[in-house]
């Protein structure tokens, strides 16, 4: 969504108070989702005003994925009376703004766009949320211990996927309108424009190189390698659920409390779970841990770019899976060692 708005004359310098005031005024007319301290856990949640924002936040536990692809979503309500069946679809309504999105998460949204928006059939549920939502990004001033966005083609100050981008300057923030939608949100007249350049973040050098896509097919049959890598895996799903780009879901019809009413829901699923792709008859195409880890890696670095004809992998380098994994399975380690295998 990058366009000519990202030019020097669309840049403002604001103080922390001005920024908070802006959020407060936006909160009166739109839903604001921002990093919030929920019982000690940093999560993107609705905020009533700027005081609820966890200012100075680092990386949230969950990515912004859940704002577009909720963990559980009702696709249909099914009303059955006698022989008559009526289906009802309800799409998300109301404008919302997600504040404080990190560049890696915004890239994750771009990946989801490729799946749900830019390829047929378009997912109406996702599309409705996406159309209603503006992203206000915040560049990272420093890079976290497990971050590796530069290795997967991102940068800690990448603004391309945002509507509005913020940079911390020390005295306050530099605000940049990236898209027209972003420009519309900014109270231009009240804020001083600036020609001040963006603060530079020294991006860390890429810690490793992802093997070229044409090398990947050769890794597929290295069962011994994958089994060794997966041996410590507990087959939980935390890596997929916190991932900004993991998008597998399962669909099921369930009865509602009212007789004759049912819902069709879709929920997150994960290729790391033991039941992944279980089919009638009990066959599990990815029944071994090694195959499931392989699936996760292949999905990110080969299947995704191939299927959606993109140059980048479905990994934004946010590093969440590395830290959240209870047994310290490390995606960077797996990919690095794979490079040696090539």
């Amino acid at each position, binding site marked *: 969504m990058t366009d000519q708005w990202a030019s020097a004359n669309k840049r403002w310098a604001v103080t922390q108070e001005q920024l908070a005031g802006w959020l407060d005024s936006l909160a009166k007319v739109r839903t604001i989702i921002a990093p919030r301290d929920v019982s000690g856990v940093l*999560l993107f949640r609705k905020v009533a005003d700027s005081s609820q924002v966890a200012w100075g936040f680092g990386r949230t536990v969950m990515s912004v994925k859940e704002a577009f692809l909720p963990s*559980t979503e009702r696709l249909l309500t099914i009303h059955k009376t006698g022989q008559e069946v009526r289906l009802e679809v309800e799409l998300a309504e109301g404008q919302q703004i997600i504040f404080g999105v990190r560049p890696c998460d915004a890239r994750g949204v771009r990946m989801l766009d490729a799946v749900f928006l830019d390829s047929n059939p378009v997912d109406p549920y996702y599309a409705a949320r996406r159309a209603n939502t503006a992203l206000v990004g915040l560049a990272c001033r420093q890079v976290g*211990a497990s971050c590796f966005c530069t290795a997967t083609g991102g940068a800690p100050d990448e603004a391309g996927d945002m509507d509005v981008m913020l940079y911390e300057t020390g005295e306050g923030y530099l605000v940049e309108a990236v898209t027209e939608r972003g420009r519309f949100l900014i109270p231009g007249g009240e804020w001083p424009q600036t020609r001040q350049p963006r603060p530079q973040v020294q991006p860390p050098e890429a810690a490793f190189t992802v093997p070229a896509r044409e090398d990947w097919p050769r890794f597929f049959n290295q069962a011994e390698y994958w089994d060794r890598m997966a041996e410590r895996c*507990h087959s*939980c799903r935390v890596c997929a659920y916190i991932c900004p780009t993991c998008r597998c879901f399962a669909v099921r019809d369930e009865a509602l409390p009212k007789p004759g009413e049912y819902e069709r829901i879709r*929920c997150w699923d994960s290729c790391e779970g033991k039941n992944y792709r279980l089919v009638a008859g009990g066959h599990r195409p990815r029944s071994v841990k090694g195959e499931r880890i392989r699936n996760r890696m292949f999905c990110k670095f080969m299947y995704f770019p191939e299927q959606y004809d993109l140059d980048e992998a479905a990994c934004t380098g946010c590093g969440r899976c*590395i830290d959240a994994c*209870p047994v*310290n399975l490390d995606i960077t380690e797996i990919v690095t060692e794979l490079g040696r295998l090539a």
Partner: protein
Amino acid sequence: MYEPRIIAFLCTWCSYTGADSAGIARMKSPANIRDIRVPCSGRVSPELIMRAFNQGADGVLALGCHVGECHYDTGNHRAAKRIPALHALMTYAGLEPERLRLDWVSASEGERFSKIATEFTEAVRALGPIHWKMESRRLEEAAKRMELESESVPLPPADCAGKTDAIRLKARELLSSQAVECVIGYEVGPRGRTRPVFIHSPEDVERLVWNPGCVNNLTSYLDDKLTPVGGKEPPKPVAVVAKPCDSRAVNVLVAEHRFEREKVHVIGVTCEGVAGEDGNLQFRCVNCQERTPVVYDTLVGAPVEGRASDVPARRIGQMEALAPAERMEFWLGEFDRCIRCYACRQACPLCDCPVCLFERDDSLWVGMGIGLDEKRTFHLGRAYHMAGRCVGCGECERACPMDIPVCLLNHKMAQEIEKMFGHRAGMTVAPSPIITILSGEYKEG
């Protein structure tokens, strides 16, 4: 007037006929009760009771034959053990204690049936409808977490180098002699975090370490390693490095016939406690009495003195001091963060059902959604399933990305089971007392 919905599970041999007797004698019983006829009160698994509450029952009554009069000798023993344990859990989670009742009614006791049914219905009526469900606004308020007591204890010094050497030595010996197929131990990962490692050859034993970061419970891998997969030869023995808490899980697993004791060589390590993120002792270690493994084939390290703290018990006290509605709000606020990633279940050495009850494809016990109802059902169900089995290693809570205090549930159940049956999970090779018959500890009334 508010009419509660009450589900009564009635044993076909006694209370069901008892209800009939009441009717024949023209005694009045409230019309709020929906009877479900079961072959025995032992058939009333706690899951059924939880399901009834989930489906909107305001109260659940389970009536069986008096102890000693069971048609199947000991069927009602199971009810007598399980339902009080469930009652303790549900009460702790915020259900008013009056909403669940277990009692005994024989076939001829029509009057007793009528009395219990009336009493129970009136008690539930006085409480009003059940409020498992909460609007998101209320949840947000509840999310202001109650400050749980805590204790910060510096990590005691430990001879990590000596223990590392001893573990490596033993591992080399076991692998060289081919006594075991692999040694499950700890290594330091590329980012400096200690993590599980599987050593298959004697050349690799230098990767093994012992340090305060050895948090994982490695016995959680045993079931997987020692279960024969489709037609393959029986698995070869493995060795596992086990902390004292972890070693208790070996006992439970053996008692539950998950594998034979001979299949595991336990390298037990005496433990000074493991470190949390702040470098201090993890909370699970502050009240650890067993600093020496309870079961081992090789013991590494000198005996360590246990450490006592009443803070974990005080935490439970804090919870119990709250009113039921406040407790429910607390738990719902906590469960609300759950994403059903099952990290807690997968990290647990004892959560090893081939298919988890809460993950069945038919949604029989709980739906697939990642909503508050489902999450509550999962967490309470898991806590119940861990009763008398949980060894308190605390891995479920550590694995949780959302910091849900899962151990606060498990710890309460452990306390309850110890109070009821004098049982501490895994101290000996014994199954949970709530799956066995009574041995004289039950007194009616």
